[in-house]
């Protein structure tokens, strides 16, 4: 059984780009359905569950419903099914909505799968392999490092505002309180970034042209061949769509 986490990040990125670009180029519902199925099966084989996609699925269902309603009201493809004053329903709205739903599913799940199953350090090494100076490549692990920190800071600001009795229930109150929560967060972000910059510079960040990693990424020949196959596969889809 394979583990997505153990694959080379370049293969995972190529797979993600193949899925995204194929979904954007192709208008075949069958192909998009197969690709979505492959993503879900690969996730099931690797992780034995689809728990990682739970939250994203809810978001996509909401967006999909919005797309369906907009296409129902404004879609003008296909034959006229129903008319009542200016309100007209055309038959094409179902096909367009299903295709859009499959497409957003592929685009979101593939990118999410790449993000969740790729170690930030592997991403940094991948960028270093592409001749990007490590001062810039290491910013990827820094995003992963500081994201929970900043979420915690935001939560602390919200808690302190609540303790002061700032009302934050209605939409209007939320809008009114926006500067009161974002501006302190910006201030804290500036303080944290200044401390972090000084700290990493004192440890010699950027002093040398290269740096070592505990675990190195290596592209297996089989993975290399898979990358080539994916590129050829996308070329085939592109040619078929154009012709």
């Amino acid at each position, binding site marked *: 059984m394979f583990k997505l986490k153990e694959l080379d990040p370049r293969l995972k990125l190529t797979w993600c780009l193949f899925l995204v670009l194929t979904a954007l180029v192709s208008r075949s519902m069958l192909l998009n359905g197969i690709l979505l199925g492959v993503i879900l099966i690969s996730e099931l084989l690797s992780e034995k569950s689809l728990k990682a996609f739970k939250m994203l699925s809810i978001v996509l269902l909401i967006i999909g419903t919005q797309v369906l309603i907009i296409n129902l009201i404004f879609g003008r493809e296909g034959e006229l099914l129903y008319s009542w004053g200016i309100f007209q329903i055309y038959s094409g709205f179902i096909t367009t909505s299903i295709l859009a739903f499959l497409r957003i599913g592929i685009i979101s799940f593939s990118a999410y799968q790449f993000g969740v199953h790729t170690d930030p350090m592997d991403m940094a090494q991948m960028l270093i392999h592409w001749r990007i100076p490590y001062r810039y490549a290491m910013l990827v692990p820094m995003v992963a490092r500081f994201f929970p920190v900043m979420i915690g800071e935001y939560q602390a600001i919200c808690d302190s505002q609540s303790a002061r009795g700032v009302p934050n229930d209605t939409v209007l109150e939320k809008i009114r309180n926006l500067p009161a929560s974002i501006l302190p967060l910006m201030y804290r972000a500036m303080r944290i970034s200044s401390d972090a910059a000084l700290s990493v510079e004192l440890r010699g960040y*950027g002093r040398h042209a290269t740096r070592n990693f505990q675990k190195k990424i290596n592209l297996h020949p089989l993975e290399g061949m898979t990358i080539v196959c994916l590129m050829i596969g996308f070329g085939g889809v592109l040619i078929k769509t154009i012709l």
Partner: protein
Amino acid sequence: MQNEQAIGKKSIFKTDTKSLIGAVVMGIVFVIACQITGQIDNMLPWGKMGMLLINGTVWAFFTGILTLLYRQPGGLIAAEVEALISIMYTPLWPTFIFANGIASIWVSFVAVKCDMTKWSHHILAQGGVCVLGNAIVGVGLVFILGLPVGVAAVSSLITIGVTWPLATLAEKKVYDALLKSGMVK
């Protein structure tokens, strides 16, 4: 900072460590701000129709102010951090990669030509951010979400019309305050 390479007043580039890490951390703040405003928009009638007006204003404001604060590549890094983390909550992320990048480069271009002290400079900077950004997102609405072209065009035009003045106002006020505090030289 030993590696400080900020070159002159009119330079686009600022590659010291403080700017790079600052851009990353502020990029995360950018994501959080977009998340909160996205949720607020979704509670409002226009959000239910897919037009994120408050979110669009905050997006344009952050893209502008972070580029003015950290220049390049900091502005681009902050913008791309937002675009890449948006994978977690929107299928429009491929368009955000291009929209955020182009908008940030546009602000740098304006900041090099103008000293950003007048209203007209901020109107120009935000005009480019809102028009270019929303045009690219409009393309995404058609090709990714499959919305009719007319709906996407109207949605983008309304978003541009609302976000441009609001983001300009916010950017000018905050940039003047940053100038006064000495954070921007």
